[in-house]
């Protein structure tokens, strides 16, 4: 598919997804009312709904979705493995472990700021462990060793989570399980600011690595002959992509499939040139998660479906459809 055409379509989809997030909700507002609320006028209740609830949720979905998809695309490039995803690499496990730990200890209550922070710290610990294990086994950070280390560290964290849950009381279990399914229910402007502070600079760095990733896709040795400091690029890309993931997990819980399916879908449509793949993955992930959140809020209103369920329910058939198209 034509790259700029797809880019245009995705930009339009992203704009549309934000508009839809602001326009639709369990409380029905007319477009006029929503617009008035955005401009700071209209009914006070409408303003609260649009400015305090819908808008931060939409922006958080955009940041988290875009970040997860971008990080997924980078992990797939780095590890040259189509399965590479924050989940496989133990990063989600670390983040979930950190969050469940503070929940179980009772440190985090009433939606305090410690939960995202702990998730973040857990993700960083996981990344550190994965790198230590991998470099202890092999100094050149071999792809297979990294993947293996990720799987092992992730498994360890999930074992710790199971242990913590087994000895926790029911409210903790409930909160932890809901959190592990991912939700934007707790979206706040502060969460948006935090996600933006981590995601936007990280995204710029990752987009800047696109050319080096292209070279590394031909072969790491070739890339180094062409002047790429392969190990340094790997370290930077790995750390920054992990940071984006951790920030996303911290504010929205564990949302699966976005990091796996979105980059794959984009690759099937426009190929693997990272200069195109990375920005389009960000756009597609952002729009996808924003739409998914509208569905999560609306489908069983006034109840809410965990957004991870939506991303899986919608993402998997879409992925299979693309896969079928790419095979024909």
């Amino acid at each position, binding site marked *: 598919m034509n790259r700029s055409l797809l880019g245009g379509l995705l930009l339009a989809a992203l704009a549309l997804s934000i508009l839809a997030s602001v326009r639709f909700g369990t409380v029905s507002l007319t477009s006029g009312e929503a617009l008035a609320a955005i401009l700071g006028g209209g009914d006070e209740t409408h303003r609260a709904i649009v400015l305090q609830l819908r808008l931060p949720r939409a922006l958080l979905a955009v940041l988290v979705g875009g970040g997860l998809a971008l990080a997924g695309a980078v992990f797939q490039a780095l590890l040259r493995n189509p399965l590479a995803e924050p989940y496989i690499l133990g990063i989600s496990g670390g983040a979930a472990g950190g969050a469940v730990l503070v929940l179980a200890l009772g440190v985090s209550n009433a939606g305090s700021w410690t939960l995202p922070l702990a998730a973040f710290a857990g993700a960083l610990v996981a990344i550190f462990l994965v790198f230590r294990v991998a470099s202890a086994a092999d100094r050149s950070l071999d792809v297979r060793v990294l993947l293996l280390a990720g799987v092992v560290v992730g498994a360890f964290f999930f074992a710790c989570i199971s242990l913590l849950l087994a000895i926790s009381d029911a409210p903790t279990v409930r909160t932890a399980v809901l959190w592990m399914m991912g939700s934007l229910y707790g979206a706040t402007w502060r969460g948006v600011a935090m996600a933006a502070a981590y995601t936007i600079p990280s995204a710029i760095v990752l987009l800047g690595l696109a050319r*080096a990733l292209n070279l590394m896709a031909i072969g790491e040795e070739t890339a180094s*002959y062409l002047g790429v400091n392969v190990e340094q690029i790997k370290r930077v890309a790995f750390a920054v992509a992990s940071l984006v993931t951790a920030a996303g997990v911290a504010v929205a819980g564990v949302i699966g499939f976005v990091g796996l399916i979105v980059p794959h879908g984009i690759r099937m449509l426009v190929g693997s040139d990272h200069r195109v793949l990375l920005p389009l993955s960000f756009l597609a992930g952002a729009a996808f998660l924003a739409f998914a959140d509208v569905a999560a809020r609306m489908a069983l209103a006034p109840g809410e479906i965990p957004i991870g369920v939506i991303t899986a329910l919608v993402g998997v058939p879409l992925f299979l459809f693309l896969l079928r198209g790419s095979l024909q």
Partner: protein
Amino acid sequence: MTTFEARDLVVRYAPGTPPALNGVSMVVEEGAFYAVLGPNGSGKSTLLRALLGVVRPHTGEVSLRGIPLDRWHRRELARTVGVVPQLESVAFPLTVRELVAMGRYPHLGPLRAEGEADRIAIRQALEQCDVARLRERPITTLSGGELQRVRIARALAQEPRALALDEPTASLDIRHEMSIFELLRRSVDEGLTVLVVTHNLNIAARFADRLLVLDRGKVAAEGVAEDVLTEEVLGRVYQWPVSVQREQATGGLQVTPLTRPRP
């Protein structure tokens, strides 16, 4: 000025195994066409990779243009030496021009966009290697000979002072093999230094200024073709009797394997 230099090079891939290189010293002068020969497993590719800094020597020193290799920055190194490695994967369907444009990375870095100088370098490299007409073809559709020339074009687009090639003509037919070596010869005549690892003794004898024969990690012979390609040296190194004759049509040395007498 020397381009590549190795002194008492010892390379061991794993502790306890016999060294892949065992005390190799050699010098490639600037502007030379230098060929590294030897049987399978004699350490040819290892020597090349050690000279390019991707294999760290156990002991010994490697330098490029008189400066120890570990003091070179990767990008500066890539502006000095263009490499055509033996193996690389075609990860995604790039066009010929896109692949050759990758040779500009050491000049551009991760962020700078292609400028006029880059476009000229790419065009010249494409023309030099006679692949300009293929520029929009996906590299997945090229023949083996075309792909090899495109990869050399990528190395030339780096605008290097030296080229290093690992078996550039393995599995190519004589027409493609000859066209590539003639391209390399022309480049040397224009001032480039070329270091090539090859199995083909005859073509090395014909094109290279100096030759190095490796035998189980050690230098068996080094020098001009007449001194290196002798029946005695080759018979010992390859453990197969050969005859070396001067060929009438080209004036080059011709190595012919003989039939080994049955024990």
